[in-house]
């Protein structure tokens, strides 16, 4: 059972306020019962699913809403402990392959899906996608779910000549990031039901759809850029979020620098070790009784060198990319916060303008302009979605970093254990003397 705020539901648009149960609205009205997910909530909102929803500005909402209360329950119970039993959508990105054509060379990845959701025609899918397909998906999600935080993709552009786009290391890092991205989307209670995600996971050929999508993309992107309105009263919690993000991204940057520095120092240490070990071998060659012990030490240093090499590689591959991914996440989150500010600013401006006009006309107060109403809805929707996404993000972040840092500790422990084993195994060799002077120690 999830504790805390209920998960955000599909954004609704042009509906009279009374018919919609906003998580935020529910809080303000304060009946405690409405705060916790219960079958009541499910019943109350099942009606939404059947209606044709559209966003405040008229664009159809391209989300597939929960068709039944039971699946809603499932989503609400999902929370942050990712028990395999409650999840019904599993995605994986693997098997990178290089494609060479006359026009270009690129990498595709296998996207495998396993699901019991009725929104999908089949229980299993396996398709091949390239980076720009992921980019398409992300853009579609951003446009169709503007009030939600969309996980980031790994960097799009790589400097040719500086980074080898086809090196095993680069492709492996990218694959992991794409896998992470898709899993995060699949775990999101709203995003995972997005029609575009469905298409992405199931369609044999994305290209056709992409062509059409390209045209609409242009128009959509203008949507939430800015209304040019100035924000007056940003709620405290969002200011706190923005401040946190600033400080957090600073810390990420520092950790990135430290990690890079450590890798550099370790690499230089490795260079010296690789010269150090062989000197013992050279020495062994001119000694008689000390020959075995010296060779033993040379071998030991060589083993430690290999272990160090592995450690540095692990840190490069596992640690740095995740830090950088979170830096991108911070940027994505900041963008969403900015959008929210704009929506609120627009509302404030319209509210003011309406109040002004009302004064002028001196008409009755009962008629609240639907335009303003719609803005208010948007703000409240946005705030609810954002808060839910924020909490989810914080929780995931905690888990991710716990996992990441534990991994760092593990890698270092493994390194020392390998070295320990090497030195311990050389001790008996060092004690062991020639047969003429047999000795036990």
């Amino acid at each position, binding site marked *: 059972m999830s504790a805390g705020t209920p998960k955000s539901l599909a954004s609704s648009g042009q509906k009279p306020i009374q018919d919609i149960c906003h998580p935020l609205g529910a809080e303000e009205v304060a009946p405690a019962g409405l705060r916790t997910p219960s079958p009541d909530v499910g019943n109350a909102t099942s009606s939404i699913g059947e209606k044709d929803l559209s966003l405040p500005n008229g664009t159809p909402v391209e989300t597939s809403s929960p068709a039944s209360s039971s699946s809603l329950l499932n989503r609400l119970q999902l929370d942050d402990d990712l028990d395999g039993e409650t999840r019904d959508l599993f995605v994986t990105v693997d098997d990178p392959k290089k494609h060479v054509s006359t026009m270009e060379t690129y990498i595709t990845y296998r996207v495998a899906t396993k699901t019991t959701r009725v929104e999908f025609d089949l229980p299993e899918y396996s398709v091949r996608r390239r980076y720009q397909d992921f980019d398409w998906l992300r853009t579609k999600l951003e446009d169709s779910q503007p009030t939600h935080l969309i996980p980031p993709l790994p960097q799009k552009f790589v400097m040719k000549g500086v980074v080898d786009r086809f090196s095993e290391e680069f492709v492996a890092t990218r694959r992991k990031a794409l896998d992470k991205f898709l899993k995060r989307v699949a775990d999101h209670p709203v995003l995972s039901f997005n029609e575009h995600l469905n298409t992405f996971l199931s369609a044999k050929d994305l290209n056709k759809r992409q062509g059409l999508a390209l045209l609409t993309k242009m128009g959509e992107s203008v949507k939430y850029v800015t209304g040019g309105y100035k924000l007056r009263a940003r709620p405290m919690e969002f200011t706190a979020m923005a401040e946190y993000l600033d400080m957090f991204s600073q810390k990420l940057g520092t950790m990135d620098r430290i990690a890079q520095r450590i890798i550099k120092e370790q690499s230089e240490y490795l260079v010296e070790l690789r010269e150090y070990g062989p000197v013992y071998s050279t020495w062994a060659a*001119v000694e008689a009784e000390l020959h075995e012990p010296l060779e033993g030490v040379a071998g030991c240093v060589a083993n430690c060198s290999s272990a160090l090499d592995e450690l540095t590689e692990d840190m490069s591959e596992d640690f740095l990319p995740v830090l950088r991914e979170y830096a991108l996440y911070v940027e994505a989150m900041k963008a969403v916060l900015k959008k929210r500010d704009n929506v609120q600013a627009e509302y404030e401006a319209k509210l003011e303008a309406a109040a002004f006009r009302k004064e002028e006309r001196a008409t009755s107060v009962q008629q609240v302009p639907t335009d303003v109403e719609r803005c208010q809805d948007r703000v409240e929707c946005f705030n609810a979605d954002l808060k839910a996404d924020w909490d989810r993000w914080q929780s995931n972040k905690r888990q991710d970093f716990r996992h990441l840092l534990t991994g760092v500790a593990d890698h270092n422990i493994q390194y020392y254990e390998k070295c320990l084993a090497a030195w311990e195994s050389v001790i008996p060799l060092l004690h062991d003397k020639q047969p003429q002077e047999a000795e036990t120690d």
Partner: protein
Amino acid sequence: MMAEAVNEKTAQIEGSELAHTELENNKNKTMVEEGSSLLRRLEISVAEAEKRTGKNTVNMQETFTVYLVETRPIDAMKEGHNPAPDSLWRRYSEFELLRNYLLVTYPYIVVPPLPEKRAEFVWHKLSADNMDPDFVERRRVGLENFLLRIASHSVLSNDKILYHFLTKEHGWKEAVYETGFQAKADSRIKALSATFRVKNPDKRFTEMRHYSDELQSITSHLLRVRARVADRLYGVYKVHGNYGRVFSEWSAIEKEMGDGLQSAGHHMDAYAASVDDILEEEEHYADQLKEYLFYAEALRAVCRKHELIQYELETASSDLISKKQQREELATGMVRTFSFKGMTNKLFGQESPEQREARLSLLEDQIVEGEETVKEKTLESQEYVKCAWVDIQRFKEQKDRDLREALISYAIMQISLCKKGIQVWSNAKECFQKM
């Protein structure tokens, strides 16, 4: 009063032997038992170091370090007493003087080396300053080691000058110079650096000399790289300290993650700090290697001395042969060897019978002298080879033993380092898991 007792003991001690199986024990104990030695009757240590200022030979003010040499007769302690040791102060230059004296007086012995005069093979944190307390301390230990090695050597430990050095502060320098070793010292230096071709050296000594060259170059290389390795290791550990700071800062903006991060940060600080002790310990290993770097030089000197003696013998022999040939020619009138006299005879005519007689007589004297010289040199060479080879064997066994031990303690150090690393990162992991 102690001197008399010592003299008695000295008489008893000559010529005892030691079975090789007893050499398994640790170095000090081994040194005490090896051969008949001073160390059996006298406890020796270099207990302290102090800074002094004074005027040097050119009347300039200088600061230098003196070392306290303490001695205590072992007999005096057996009766349950614990008498205060006798002591005197010596500076490094006096130790050097002692060693030079021993080198010259016992050329067939691989004389133990002194700790280095100036700090070399320094990695960045380590000071190259001779006044640095760590350097002084390591030098004190090195000087003590030097004395113990000498005092346990079956030949060197019997030396009177050594005993004087250990027991009487004043007048020692004068006593050393009175031995007249200085004159030999100069010719020794010349001989060691001169190039000459020996026709028939003892192959064992030639091999040993090659080995000493290898040992010198290898240990020198090893020490240089080891210093660089230490430098890099220092860098790796210290940079981790930055994690401590950033985790602390980060924990301030987190709610549930804060505690775990903060504690992990402390472990990172501890990790960074641990490298100082680790590298301090490793210096001991470096010192052991250095001792054998310098020992290699001493070994080389012994081999070279053999070559020099052999060369002198060969020169004397060939001189003798040529003189004999000259005599023969003079006697028979057949010129086989070139000589100026022969040439001038051809050019300006024969010499008179009286002149010939004189020359023949001179040659005969020279031949007699030459034969004496050859006999002496042959004896000298044989004696030298015999004694030197014995000490070289002793040195070889000591070296194998000491270096094996050094490698073992180095391995133990590394094991300890690894265990500490595992401990710290396991602690940090626990903290991360609580995040």
